[in-house]
């Protein structure tokens, strides 16, 4: 029996069933079934990744939810926001002497009175939100890819599914008596009804906190997902990881109807009886229309190169200098003609935490550009708006946060555990690695910070200094490592937020308008990705020179602290990778020193 002939995408549960029954025949005891996943993962992984079949799988959030048939394979790109408790479920049961599985399902007709013959298994429930701060160009290109993939595949898929293959028949036969059936259209209708009803009438459902770190900026279009992970696949899944999950979209009208009723407080009595804790099984309280359930079959982490979409990252060396130059020109233009600030901004954009030594995060280079004019009437500073716009075009994920009293006092930015609802209440600082953050300090006006505001500033300071965010678990704090490059834009030197580099902006006369073409943007994005992936080393001879330089500099100026040295070396590294050079050349080191001299001179003038 082979994989390709099964309709993995349309009826993944059928494929699971076939595999289960096959291993049932081989397994000696029921306990043995728990130990393996019957080859489900392997089958799907081969089909999805080896043949890049994953592009054919519809993606939640790019296709309307009610257009996807229930119990089909779907894709979800998101960030792990919370990890719920383990769910124990009946994974397999014996009905009339035959074992059935209810893995990857939410409901099944387990015959009553068969408890003794049921196998209890566990699965993890993860709460994933759409990737916070993801820029529109990423989404667009993902969508474009999928349409491209579908158009080429539809033909071949038609050929691939010849009716009459023996496997297929076996499938159809099984489905006839399968408990779930395949009357997707029927369920779809029900679901559609429910969506309509929830969106119209019930404030309870809309109030529900969906825990999106940066709020849902684009209306309520994007939905988070509840991902149920099997077989300990979540072992290396961490909080704030950006993942692509492939799984079965399940939807059960009864379950969600019940939860809907509960939201209206109909059965508060039942709750009192069942448990004193309201939070028992949080997942039950989230309406399925707002938070679809995904039975995860396999997943993978999304890395930088995924955004390049298969296009080769190899940039020719001659191009590098040119691309770097044109990007630098663009940045210079955006910063009002300040070439020095543009150099720093470029290095800053390439920075990422590449290692942690003790408490220190190596490779971060937070930047404070001073001398930005505040926006009119508490609005955004024009410089901040431009910078954020430019950055959003270049990096996959970015966010602009005006540092006004209002935003600071409004809500905690660090995530905290709410023991009443048993959830991790998100904050704006729950960001995935590599998300760029722009803080507009010009928005800050004189006024009082409340305790929330003070704590928020502490969190931001901690993030700038150590690239860590402390999550508040009430009884203890948990430090989560982060990798969020921060750009601070302020009028004077920021006294509140300690950045690695401070560059006073020296805007010159307005330049000629700069024409940016799409192909420019694409090559810049590729260049940035490539540079960020570069490895870097320091060879012996350069090391000696650098060492002497450092000692000499310190002899000259006693105030040079170790963090200045760290900054120089980080900049040297970034300078080298900005030329896509694997080792540090003296030329680049000198350039860094030169930049620092220029910058120091400017600071003195202030």
């Amino acid at each position, binding site marked *: 029996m082979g994989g390709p002939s099964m309709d993995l995408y349309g009826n993944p549960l059928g494929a699971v069933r076939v595999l289960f029954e096959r291993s049932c025949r081989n397994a000696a005891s029921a306990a043995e079934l728990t130990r393996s996943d019957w080859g489900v993962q392997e089958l799907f992984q081969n089909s999805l990744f080896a043949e890049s079949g994953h592009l054919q799988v519809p993606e939640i959030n790019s296709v309307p939810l009610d257009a996807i048939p229930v119990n089909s394979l779907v894709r979800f790109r998101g960030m792990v926001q*919370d*990890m719920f*408790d*383990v769910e*124990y*479920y*009946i994974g397999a049961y014996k009905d009339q002497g035959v074992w059935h599985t209810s893995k990857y*399902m*939410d*409901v*099944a007709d387990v015959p009553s009175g068969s*408890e003794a013959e049921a196998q*209890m*298994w566990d699965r993890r429930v993860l709460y994933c939100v759409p990737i916070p701060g993801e820029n529109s160009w990423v989404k667009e290109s993902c969508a474009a890819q999928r349409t491209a993939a579908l158009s080429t595949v539809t033909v071949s898929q038609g050929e691939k599914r010849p009716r009459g293959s023996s496997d297929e028949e076996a499938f159809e036969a099984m489905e006839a008596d399968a408990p779930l059936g395949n009357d997707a259209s029927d369920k779809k209708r029900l679901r559609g009804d429910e969506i309509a009803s929830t969106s119209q009438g019930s404030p309870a459902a809309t109030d529900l906190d969906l825990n999106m770190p940066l709020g849902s900026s684009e209306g309520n279009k994007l939905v988070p997902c509840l991902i149920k992970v099997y077989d300990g696949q979540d072992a290396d899944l*961490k*909080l704030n990881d950006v993942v692509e999950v492939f799984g079965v979209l399940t939807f059960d009208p*009864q*379950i969600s109807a*019940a*939860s809907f009723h*509960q939201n209206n407080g109909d059965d508060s009595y*039942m709750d009192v*009886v*069942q*448990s*004193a*804790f309201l939070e*028992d*099984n949080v997942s*039950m309280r989230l309406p399925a229309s707002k938070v679809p359930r995904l039975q995860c079959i396999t997943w993978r982490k999304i890395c930088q190169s995924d955004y390049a979409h298969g296009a080769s990252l190899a940039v020719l060396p001659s191009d590098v200098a040119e691309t770097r130059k044109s990007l630098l020109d663009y940045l210079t233009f955006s910063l009002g003609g300040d070439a020095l600030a543009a150099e720093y901004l470029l290095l800053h954009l390439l920075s990422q935490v590449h290692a942690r*030594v*003790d*408490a*220190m995060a*190596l490779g971060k280079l937070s930047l404070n550009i001073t001398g930005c004019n505040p926006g009119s009437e508490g609005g955004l500073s024009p410089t901040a708006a431009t910078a954020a716009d430019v950055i959003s075009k270049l990096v996959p994920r970015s966010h602009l946060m005006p540092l006004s009293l209002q935003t600071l006092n409004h809500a905690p930015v660090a995530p905290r555990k709410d*023991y*009443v609802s048993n959830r991790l209440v998100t904050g704006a600082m729950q960001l995935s690695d590599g998300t760029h953050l722009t803080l507009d300090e010009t928005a800050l006006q004189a006024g009082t910070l409340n305790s929330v505001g003070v*704590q928020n500033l*502490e969190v931001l300071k901690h993030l700038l200094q150590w690239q860590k965010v402390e999550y508040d*678990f009430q*009884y*203890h704090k*948990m430090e*989560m*490592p982060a990798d969020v490059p921060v750009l601070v834009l302020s009028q004077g030197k920021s006294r509140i937020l300690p950045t690695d580099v401070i560059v006073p902006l020296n805007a010159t006369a307005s330049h000629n308008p700069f024409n940016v073409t799409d192909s420019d943007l694409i090559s810049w994005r590729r260049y940035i990705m490539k540079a960020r992936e570069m490895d870097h*080393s*320091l060879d012996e001879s350069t*090391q000696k020179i650098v*060492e002497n330089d*450092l*000692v000499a500099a*310190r*002899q000259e100026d006693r105030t040079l602290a*170790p*963090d200045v*040295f*760290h900054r120089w*070396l*980080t900049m040297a*590294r970034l300078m080298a990778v900005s030329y896509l050079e694997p080792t540090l050349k003296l030329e680049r080191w000198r350039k860094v020193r030169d930049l620092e001299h220029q910058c120091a001179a400017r600071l003195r003038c202030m």
Partner: protein
Amino acid sequence: MPAPDFKADRERCKEFLRSYIGDDGTLKYMKMLQQVANRKLKAVEINLGDVKDAKDADLSFVERIRTNARRYVGLFADAIDDLLPEPNIPLARDDDFDVFLSQRTEEVPEQMDVVDPLHKLPPEIKRYFEVYIKSEDKNAALALRGVKASHIGWLVKVRGIITRCTDVKPLMQVATYTCETCGYEIYQEVTSRSFMPISECPSVRCRTNNAKGMLSLQVRGSKFTKFQEAKIQELADQVPKGHIPRTMTVQIRGELTRLVGPGDLVEISGIFLPTPYTGFRAMRAGLVADTYLEAMSIIQTKKRYDEYVLKDVEQDLIRNLSEDGDIYSKLSSSIAPEIFGHEDVKKALLLLLVGAPSRQLSDGMKIRGDVHVCLMGDPGVAKSQLLKHMVSVAPRGVYTTGRGSSGVGLTAAVHRDPVTNEMVLEGGALVLADMGICAIDEFDKMEESDRTAIHEVMEQQTVSIAKAGITTSLNARTAILAAANPAWGRYDMRRTPAENINLPPALLSRFDIMWLILDRADMDSDLAMARHVLHVHQHSAPPSLDFTPLDSSTLRAYISSARQVIPYVPRDLTEYMASAYSALRQEEAQSDAPHSYTTARTLLSIIRLSEALARLRFSNVVAQSDIDEALRLMQMSKFSLYTDERKKSGLDPISDIYSIIRDEAARARTMDVSYNSALNWISRKGHSQAQLKECLEEYAALNVWQINPTNFDIHFVDA
């Protein structure tokens, strides 16, 4: 697998209870049962370890109990019913329970003809006791994430922190009804959280008469048990990086209720059970089952040094380490190994961790044993890092800043509980760090109210509170590690130390050791720093140290076992100590501008430091070398503060060393000085070994003394 024979196992339970002999040679459980019969004890706790240890123990029986604990709780209860002896003291027969019980037992004979199972008195209602099966003491507790679906029904032991708990409520165990038609009492055992009341009398008489007798629930006749629910959360150290701590529901019944509150660290052994949804919820939940832990025993764990239980491996390790001659410097360099240099500061910090025993005098006065250390220095000399590292090493450490972020601050605060409207006392950082260490950063920026309180904490080791009608005093037996910045941000060399240190003398004198860490300029340290930074960037790792630092768990284990030792100062050394102290006093009296405040507290500090040093050697007796090292540390700390003093004295180090050795030799009226004692003397004054060598060579060349070429002992040449 053959089905377990519960009847036989019940006999086994009985046999075990009847025959188990405890550590004290008596029948442990029979004694317990007698107490139960006498109504002195309610909880019968059966230790699984005892079942294992019992003679002719059956290991498969133990395993059966562990994997099917709920069933065996019942079996043990049945066994106890059979075994329960008559009370051997008169009982006061006045509670409802007894009245009902006697009525019921009297009723039975006259209705012997009715054979009706529902009418039979369930054993549960007669029981005055509760049975708990406790997991073996020796077994290590699982992490919450270690509990899997395969553990369902098992007796498991977990550790965690209680995050929430409910009020204690009554839970019905046996519902009693009376029938309005036939007058019979009907019993219904309740095993789950909810039950469906019977509405129609099922008795034989009603059924045969087809009377459909109405039943009414008798609240007073029913049996209730205390019931509480709690949430337990994984401890931070059990959570893998990047994961969220997991939680679990715990159901607590009977005598175990009211033992925990939110924030408590507990070790719970209990039975891991599922609760399949019923009725409406079943439909909603589909396949999913809720699980909970039925508590069988709850132990509050507060980890302090003296409760730190060593594993065998650790014991061996410590024994090996203590035999190592250089353990003192090895341990001290393992404190914050990534922070370069500062050997003596680290030594002082090590002594702070070890501490000295606190003494209670016969007149009730207490002398603290905790060593307080204050670090002062320029910004950016890794003070905060040292502090944070110390807190992580200590089993109980609290890190706070002088401007504590919470309203409670450092000491304690009284506030009104929003729910109950009662006044509650909430301990601040110092109280929380009781029996541990409290690291206070930004000590100089402390609020005035806290600063006053800290005087009391540092000497009396209590926090007294008189607020809102609450006057009390809380224990704060904590070693304080403070870090402060100089008065003008940076240490100003042109001003005197007293001006730079912006703290009142009364507070300063309470610190055993005070250290100034300055960022001094010299080529070597610059080079070392440059190399370090380069290395970090090149290899993404700190440069490897020329030794392997002990990890903090070993450090913790060593310190905790060192803290078990209670050393004393032998009589023959008291004289030595006294003379050293008087020398210090004299020195101070002679200088025209005394910087230091040598008081009786200083003497106590010397004793404390030397006792801590003796503890490190696992020795009950303080040796002279301990006192010398204590004096040297104090001297070094003074030098860190008053570097200029030495320079002003006009002597170069070499001639200074010579005069020290000469004076000491003259005092002892000897011509021979051993190298080690010479080293001791000079290091107390802040000179290095290299300088001593230089001095020895120089003066040997002048033929002032002769040096033994093998062991460098000095022999003065007669003039």
